[in-house]
């Protein structure tokens, strides 16, 4: 008999159905991964189990049973008051965003001890002892110090370890992990997932793993539940679903996931002239009285018409390098040469930047037509009619329908917005595009379409790309050459094929080992 049983669970937000009759079950000690893209209802389903839906949401139908035989509970329609005895004690939660999931004004120790206190533990000494045990168990060195620290004094990975300690403190039978590692760097992600696996094995805890990352789901789960638009489209043993997906949507998802589909490498064309040359680039920031080198002697070349990827984890200096190349920041020393780029304002006609966040980089008050035409107006290119024709041409290029012209950014999806941002970057006819995590915020199927679009544009217009990313699977797919950055330095440069198949530097090997297996 299964530990958790959802039958035909339906959830609505303000009367609008978001989850339509989801049924799934989790056996004791089993890991079930719920995968799907944003808006698929996976997080809503998970939160419905412990009654943590926002105020405007309600479970309208279905049943939720939890517990081993004999102690079986029907959680359906339980009041908040009754659910509290289950939350934390029998079902733990590992949340999505370690940066903001801990109370900033309480110490780490107090927040771990809190779950014990909530469930009736009163003895201060015993709580303290247990907190220190837990901190040590989740792999944080020097638990005594950690317990007294505040969340902002810990790194993202350490905070997620603290949140895991909270989730497992009372040895629950089930842990709901909601995108537990999506906000973490790959190497950290791997260590955190390993920790969760160890703890599960030790305590025999079952896990409902909610994730958008098929690579994570493939490597860590026994069974897979694929969701789309609030419905389960397919479920079964993970290996079986991956090997022989039945639903068309699952097949598309697997095909689009860069981590799971090993495409051929893009080898650079022989002997192209360099479009971007970076020599000994250094950027120092002053922190108090000390100087901090964010970029420390970076040199590389990008051949015309190719894609060069700059990969690294957060804090590696890749974005600072990109900002100096597009002249948003002045180098402390070193030189960036972009072949054929004029000085002054016209530099921006030659070099353009596409940002990570398609929600923040578009003015919400402008129409799409105005947004795409803005560079043309700024540079005084063409008259009204010519500009209108150019905007229409650009929308065609990025495969957006004409009727988006008069719409506002909020009416578009994330993928459509990123297409708008690309169209705007292309408006003044640049030869170099710097793409800063340009596809990182997008769902895999959307991401795959944007990557296809970028490849086609490069082919048609002869563009040179500098592709900044933390995601090695994406980098493998789009780039000809790669530089791996760590702590402000480039540790390895080469063709994508070389770097991925014969990594020479230990850090590159560690990065590659951290991405899910299929690619390797």
């Amino acid at each position, binding site marked *: 008999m299964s530990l958790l049983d959802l039958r035909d669970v339906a959830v609505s937000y303000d009367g609008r159905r978001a989850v339509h009759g989801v049924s799934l079950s989790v056996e004791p000690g089993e890991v079930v991964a719920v995968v799907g893209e944003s808006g698929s209802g996976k997080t809503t389903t998970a939160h419905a189990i412990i009654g943590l839906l926002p105020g405007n949401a309600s479970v309208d139908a279905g049943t939720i049973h939890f517990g081993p035989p004999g102690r079986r509970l029907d959680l359906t329609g339980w009041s908040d008051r009754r659910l*509290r005895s289950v939350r934390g004690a029998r079902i733990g939660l590992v*949340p999505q965003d370690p940066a*903001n999931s801990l*109370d900033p004004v309480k110490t780490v120790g107090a927040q771990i001890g809190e779950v014990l206190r*909530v469930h009736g533990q009163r003895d201060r000494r015993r709580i303290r002892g247990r907190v220190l045990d837990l901190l040590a168990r989740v792999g944080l060195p020097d638990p005594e110090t950690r317990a007294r620290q505040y969340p*902002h004094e810990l790194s993202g990975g350490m905070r997620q370890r603290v949140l895991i300690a909270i989730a497992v403190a009372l040895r629950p039978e089930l842990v709901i992990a909601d995108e537990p590692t999506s906000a973490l760097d790959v190497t950290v992600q791997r260590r955190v997932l390993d920790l969760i696996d160890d703890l599960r094995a030790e305590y025999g805890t079952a896990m409902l793993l909610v994730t958008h990352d098929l690579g994570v789901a493939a490597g860590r789960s026994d069974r897979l539940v694929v969701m789309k638009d609030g419905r389960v489209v397919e479920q079964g043993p993970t290996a079986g679903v991956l090997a022989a997906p039945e639903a068309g949507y699952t097949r598309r998802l697997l095909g689009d996931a860069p981590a799971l589909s090993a495409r051929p490498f893009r080898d650079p064309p022989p002997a192209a002239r360099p479009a971007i040359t970076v020599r000994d680039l250094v950027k120092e920031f002053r922190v108090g009285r000390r100087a901090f080198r964010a970029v420390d002697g970076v040199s590389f070349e990008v051949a015309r018409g190719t894609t060069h990827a700059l990969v690294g984890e957060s804090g590696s200096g890749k974005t600072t390098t990109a900002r100096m190349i597009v002249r948003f920041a002045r180098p402390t020393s070193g030189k960036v040469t972009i072949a054929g780029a004029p000085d002054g304002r016209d530099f921006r006609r030659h070099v353009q930047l596409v940002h990570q966040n398609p929600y923040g980089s578009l003015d919400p008050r402008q129409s799409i037509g105005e947004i795409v035409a803005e560079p043309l107006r700024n540079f005084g290119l063409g008259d009204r009619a010519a500009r209108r024709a150019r905007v229409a041409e650009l929308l065609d290029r990025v495969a957006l329908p004409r009727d988006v012209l008069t719409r506002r950014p909020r009416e578009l999806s994330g993928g459509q917005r990123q297409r708008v941002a690309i169209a705007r970057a292309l408006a003044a006819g640049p030869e170099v595009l710097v793409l800063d995590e340009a596809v990182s915020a997008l769902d895999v199927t959307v991401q795959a379409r944007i990557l296809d679009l970028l490849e086609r544009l490069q082919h048609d217009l002869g563009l040179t790309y500098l592709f900044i990313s933390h995601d090695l699977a994406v980098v493998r797919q789009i780039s000809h050459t790669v530089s791996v950055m760590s702590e402000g330095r480039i540790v390895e440069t080469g063709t994508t094929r070389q770097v991925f198949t014969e990594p020479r530097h230990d850090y590159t090997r560690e990065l590659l080992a951290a991405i899910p297996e299929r690619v390797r």
Partner: protein
Amino acid sequence: MTRHLLSRAGQAALVLWAAFTASYVLLQLLPGDSILIKFQNPELGLSPQQIAEIRAHYAAGSPLADYVSTLAGFLTGRLGYSIDTGAPVVERLAEALPETARLASAAFLLAVLIAVAIAFAASYSRTSWLRGALLSVPSLFISVPAFWLGILLIQIFSFRLKLVPVIGGSELQQLVLPVLTLAVPISAPIAQVLARAIDHVYAQPFVPVVEAKGATRWWVLWRHVARNAVLPTLTVAGLTLGELIAGSVVTETVFGRAGLGRLTEQAVNAQDTPVMLAVVVLAAAVFVLVSLIVDVLFPILDPRLKAAA
């Protein structure tokens, strides 16, 4: 930390000096003066020449020398003499200050209580109309004029219900209505900011994590949400504390209490410059002191600010 504190104290001294200078200049520029107001009454039968002599008796010399000697006096605690009554300004302040301090501190405490009650009740209530009603209370409070509220309270509680005697009565009875009059308008901004801060904190991702530990609604509100919401509220509370002195002018006049507010009102009517100057500098000192305290409290309440300070 100590360096930060020292520089803040230096800034505070600078602000006080600027407040003193600005009000000194403004008071000198006022048309007419206290000597005219006091001695021009025809019944006294003084000639313009005699008035000029009196003026010469009070004035010390050039405007700059005057300013310097007054500033030196303030720095050493000699605030001069009231032109109206001839008593030392220090004495008049010392008489009025305790009354106002009692009124103001009681009113501030009550205002904070009212604000916390409104904000907590609004965020705790699950019915949306009740929440809406509670959240509109501060707007109502802030638009009530103090003199009108004071008169209304006297009408209801003293004349109609006869709960509080108009004249006489114990110290506590005399304090109740003025405190209420003063507290209601200043509770409004505190309540508004606190309610908004509570809403903001509730939207933070750490709140569902606390709920997932099995905490009760009250536990979440009291131990996490309120603790975080205090920070923005403290700033506003500090500002309103300074406003209390201005508020006490009207309240003390309506209730006929002898305090700093009454003293201000009399000094303005009589154009009693030394008293007015002293009151302005005192008010500025309270403002500066309170914001200094708020500054010191901030890093204690929010550990993230310790590194920044």
